């Protein structure tokens, strides 16, 4: 008589079979010849629910490649990079790099960056809460010595492709404008009303914002370019959490 398989061995078999055509050994059902159909419920639940979770996180990627391509791609991705823990709102951070190297998507070199933009939107959505300073906080003497603490949701997005424009073209109600060749830059962040914004900026303002986000003084950042457009954008969306003199802790 064979010894009973251990719990760990049974679970390993069950897990392996989720990615294979046949059900694992050791299962039972009232009609043994129906085991494959019964086990398929679990296989479908796992693959379908993870695929839909990925599509919810990357809706424009799915629009660009189409549902059938997305489902087939997701199957490969999920097998290689399943969620590492139950916090699904964090899953998918490595999808952009996967798409960069996914041969069937080689004709869409911008796809990975569209995925990066979508992932950044998700991160902004769930980033920590923080206050927003009123515009008067910048109405002080010694403005050039101020350093800004940006809202935790702020993500500075840059792509050598016109990824921002492509993403915008897939938003409801968008009108198609001729694509520039790229590059694209944008601020991705969560406004105080919880709307997640994707605001295109030019390369000069992107450079200013990059310096501000690293703790540079306004005066130092202004040496890059006129900081007015960047500051206007930050204030419009409440993305400055603090303005202070001295080093940011």
């Amino acid at each position, binding site marked *: 008589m064979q010894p009973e398989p251990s719990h760990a061995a049974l679970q390993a078999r069950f897990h392996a079979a989720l990615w294979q055509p046949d059900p694992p050994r050791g299962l*039972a059902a*009232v009609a043994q010849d*129906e085991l494959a159909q*019964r086990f398929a419920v679990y296989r479908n639940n796992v693959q379908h629910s993870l695929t839909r979770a990925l599509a919810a996180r990357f809706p424009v990627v799915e629009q660009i490649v189409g549902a059938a391509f997305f489902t087939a791609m997701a199957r490969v991705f999920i097998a290689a990079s399943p969620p590492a823990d139950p916090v699904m709102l964090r899953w998918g951070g490595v999808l952009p790099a996967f798409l960069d190297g996914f041969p069937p998507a080689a004709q869409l070199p911008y796809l990975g960056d569209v995925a990066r933009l979508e992932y950044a939107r998700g991160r902004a959505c769930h980033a920590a809460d923080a206050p927003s300073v009123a515009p008067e906080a910048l109405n002080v003497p010694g403005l050039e010595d101020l350093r800004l603490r940006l809202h935790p949701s702020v993500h500075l997005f840059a792509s050598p492709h016109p990824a921002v424009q492509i993403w915008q073209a897939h938003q409801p109600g968008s009108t198609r404008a001729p694509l520039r060749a790229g590059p694209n830059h944008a601020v991705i962040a969560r406004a105080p009303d*919880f709307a997640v914004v994707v605001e295109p900026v030019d390369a000069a303002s992107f450079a200013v914002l990059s310096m501000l986000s690293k703790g540079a003084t306004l005066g130092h950042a202004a040496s890059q370019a006129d900081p007015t457009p960047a500051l206007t954008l930050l204030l419009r969306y409440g993305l400055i959490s603090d303005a202070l003199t001295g080093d940011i802790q």
Partner: protein
Amino acid sequence: MTQLPATTGLGFKAEHFRDIMAARGALGFLEVHAENYMGEGGVPHAMLAALREDHALSLHGVGLSIGGAEALDRDHLARLRVLIDRYRPESFSEHLAWSSHGAAWLNDLLPLPYTDETLARVCAHVDQVQETLGRRMLLENPATYVTFECSTWTETDFLAEIVRRTGCGLLLDVNNVFVSATNHRYCPRAYLSSFPRHAVAEIHLAGHDTEELPSGPLLIDSHGAPVADPVWTLYAEVLAQTGPLPTLIEWDTDVPEFEVLLGEAARATALLDAVKQGHPDAA
């Protein structure tokens, strides 16, 4: 720590936030999936904090893999502890199932064999959860599509022994009972008569889908349909035995208009009210 009220609650869906806020206090309690509130900030926490002011709260986990062969994820337990400390839910519940294997989380509730080995492991996991969270947890009976050749315990005896060894409570999902009984061709009333009713602290009601196999129906626990009539009948029979219990309407996929959920809730409330009149002491 207070308990969930013996009234009807709804699983919270963000699209119904305004409706629920407008109906302030009309619902007995709300239940949320813990893992949806493990981001740092933003809309989920803002909504939950607002809802918490007027509602009793049931925190329902889907990610602990209590029925898994591997050690519990301590990071996930710590995240649960943070949520519980922040929102002070009246109840915390999880599933008799596994959902992680190695480094992969599978986003489904998968079945386990019922043996002496798995019993010892599940009890150790429940002990660890209750110690880490500093409270009694409820464990939910699963809906299953297969069983295991090596199982030596019935599901109800397995659950009763977990209760006896760990002191945990149970979440009786009546739809899961009906789904599993139909799928494995046994009588749901026989199952319920041997269920450790004394430990039940909450009831779940949900809808299911139906497929046809050569041997008969295969029910799928979809949470995407109204509660089926036979499940309502079983629910009324359970209440007649237990007295009124906190009862949740679960609807997680193809979520309908809020009025549809209120209709399902009203049906449960009517059955609860009837049994409260018959059990004046239990109310």
